[in-house]
């Protein structure tokens, strides 16, 4: 099997990006009529739909917390989302772990103490997976939560980063992910300046690791301005209609 050249001699990656370039991001809010907040997000070829319901009456009595709201995340990956059709779409360990990770991330950022004894539901549907599923889901959830009018400390912006032959790269696509390149996912609160989530797989030397994490947080800061524009556009549209 010939080794795919992940970085060309000119320094371009297989999809033509430079190592520190994010993929094209397009997103829209208010896409679902029934949900309190909803967002559709495309990061490169990865496409995710997020819906938020809440805060509302808790449906799972056993999980009710007396002094704050609890967040429940359901993560679904469509069978047609990858190259090969998936047989098991729900309940597999990876999906459960992703849902749990996202829940933990947002429980620390959403100001849940304002809604005791209630439940916030986040539903995620991955329509196309081309690398960076977790960051895309986190970004989509952020948009949907802000769209639903749920108070948060800051935008949770997420980005994946890795390293190919000691060069840190930003926003990993599927091919780079499938190779043995390490995969670091960072979720950052850009205005607050704190890391909400840090996840890493495969081996990375400590010196390179620092650079990769720094690149990841830079990517997150850039992501925030893009997500912010999407929210403002959504709001401006409604405001224009209201006040014309």
């Amino acid at each position, binding site marked *: 099997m010939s080794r795919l050249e992940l970085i060309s001699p000119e320094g371009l990656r297989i999809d033509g990006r430079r190592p520190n370039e994010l993929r094209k991001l397009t997103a829209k809010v208010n896409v679902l009529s029934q949900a309190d907040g909803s967002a559709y997000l495309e990061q490169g070829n990865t496409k995710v739909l997020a819906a938020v319901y809440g805060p*509302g009456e808790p449906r799972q009595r056993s999980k009710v917390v007396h002094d704050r709201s609890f967040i429940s995340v359901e993560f679904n990956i469509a069978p047609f989302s990858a190259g090969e059709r998936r047989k098991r779409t729900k309940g597999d360990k990876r999906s459960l772990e992703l849902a749990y990770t996202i829940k933990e991330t947002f429980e620390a950022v959403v100001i849940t103490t304002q*809604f005791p004894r209630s439940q916030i539901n986040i539903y995620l549907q991955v329509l196309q997976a081309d690398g960076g599923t977790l960051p895309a889901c986190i970004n989509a959830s952020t948009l949907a939560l802000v769209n639903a009018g749920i108070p948060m*400390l800051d935008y949770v912006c997420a980005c994946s980063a890795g390293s190919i032959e000691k060069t840190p790269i930003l926003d990993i696509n599927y091919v780079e992910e499938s190779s043995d390149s390490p995969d670091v996912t960072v979720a950052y609160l850009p205005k607050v300046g704190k890391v909400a989530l840090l996840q890493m797989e495969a081996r990375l030397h400590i010196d390179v690791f620092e650079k990769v994490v720094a690149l990841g947080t830079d990517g997150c800061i850039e992501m925030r301005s893009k997500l912010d524009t999407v929210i403002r556009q959504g*709001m401006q549209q*409604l*405001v224009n209609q209201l006040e*014309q």
Partner: protein
Amino acid sequence: MQVSFSAPRAAPPVTVHHGDMDMDTDQTHIVTPGESITSDMQYMRGHGTRLDESSDPPILTSTLAGHVSRVNKLVSVKPLKARYTGDIGDIVVGRIVDVGQKRWKVDIGSKGDAVLQLSSINLPGGVQRRKLESDEKQMRTFFAEGDVLVAEVQSFFADGVCNLHTRSLNFCKLRNGSFVVVPPRLIQRTRSHFHSLPCGVDVILGLNGYVWVSKTVRKGGRHNETKVGLDEDAVDAEMVYSNKNEASAINKDERLAVARVCNCIAALAHEFKYINDTIIVYAYEASLAYPDVQDLLKLNVMEHITREAYEQMKNA
């Protein structure tokens, strides 16, 4: 069958505000979560804001995406879309979701189901009669799961749950009509929320965004606030808690009128316009240009009637 397509709308241009907000101008700024509003310490923080103490001086930061509103020294952020949070005295339309011990749980689209206690409703046989044990056991003869009712917010419990009451003749179980949901932001606070439109349709605009559209009830009915001197003791149990629509008495035209008004309200909500009785009437009149009521479901028709209604409102 005709299938129609409509192109997506272009996103409007956006201006992003940088730096500290000038609190003295009356311009409404849009802020997003994490954005700082002001570091001037003279302002108190209201809903949608938090104090970021990690910097010195502490900065008032937004937690929501919405407009900054300043009332004297209170700064708060009003979001465009949020779940209904009640106020005492609000008229709301709700749906019963649970029948419990001496109380019902009512879904009013807020962060928790509201509570309607047995002691807060009108019992048949007169307002003053005492509660009997048999009432508790027969709670479902008054309200059962799924019933739609209109009520007023009486108070709040300590954990923020609304306490409703229906202790007036206008409040009761709703019949002969349809239920429409609109964003709560679009319902403005007005003197009255019960409207009788000239087309023979009654509309109740709940402040929680739940709307009831029904055929106008004749005299002696429940929505008659203006009727003076009604004998309060003679609440007719049959009328108030009945589960029967006046099936035979509603003819096709009346049903179409109700459907037409529902579609008009849905169109106004879709175009994100404030909803009140005047604009509903204008929208209804504009919609008469489309004799087939189901045409009102088309996007371009919705746009058209909303625009016309809005124009009329402005000119009026």
